[in-house]
């Protein structure tokens, strides 16, 4: 079976995931809505996952794909905990804008 990377090139995958990763970073910085920020973080993680798979193909090695499973587990756990925190903030504050979280400073 031909390696698909011969047609696309690993660089392109790297660029794609770098851009995607950076979009995630951008989202985190750009949005004040905590939910969207969470989503941006998910985009970052997915960018990495994509790269893992690409590298896995590049090395013809399954470990990269296995790692993606762990990464997914982590993402799920993070989202669960994050949303739990978000919910309790929403209950206390009535808002999920991270701009309202400025009590601790100085």
């Amino acid at each position, binding site marked *: *079976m031909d*390696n*698909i*990377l*011969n*047609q*696309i090139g690993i*660089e*392109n995958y*790297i*660029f*794609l995931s*770098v*851009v*995607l990763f*950076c*979009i995630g*970073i*951008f*989202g985190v*910085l*750009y*949005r004040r*809505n905590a*939910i*969207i920020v*969470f*989503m*941006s973080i*998910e*985009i970052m993680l*997915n960018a990495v*996952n994509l790269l893992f*798979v*690409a590298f*896995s*193909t590049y090395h*013809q*090695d*399954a*470990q990269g*794909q296995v790692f*993606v*499973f762990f990464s*997914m587990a*982590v*993402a*799920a*756990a993070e*989202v*669960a*905990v994050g*949303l*739990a925190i978000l*919910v*309790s903030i*929403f209950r206390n504050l009535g*808002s*999920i*804008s991270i701009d309202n979280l400025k009590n601790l400073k100085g």
Partner: protein
Amino acid sequence: MIHIPDFAHATTVQVIFCFLAFITVITAFLTIFSRNPIHSAIYLVICFFSIAGHYLLLNAQFLAIVHIIVYSGAIMILFLFTIMLMNLNEQRDVHRPRITRLGAIVSFCLIVIVLITIFINSKPIVGEYDSTGEDFQSIKVLGKILLNEYMVPFEFASILLLVAMIGTVLLSKKEKLNK
């Protein structure tokens, strides 16, 4: 060296890749720029699907399925659920100060430029990508690796999920305060 796409002689795979990449990037941006969180979530789902498409393109079918199940199926539902629970709509989104946006854009450009430049400057990967022809990404192989070599991390991931579970319970459980 950067691979300049040669659209005239593009293979199918290349066209699909470009298309998927385009969708991924656009929907990712749309996720961020949408005013309505629900729209964001929808765009994100599309984005995840396109990433699953990439996985398929890379011949990682099992992973693509899992990806769709976990992300689109579980995580996004969790998001949507929360959004609806909080009854968020676009009016709720507070005004973003210009300086924030500027900062975000600046840092975005900066990091993209830096990373891309580094990768471009780096030694190009020369030659053919070797293909052993061995099966390395079927469910069977993955299962073997995951449950043989990676047994400990696999178990350890369960601890991670356990912690997340306890944590979530801890954060949401009401209790009688005996003060």
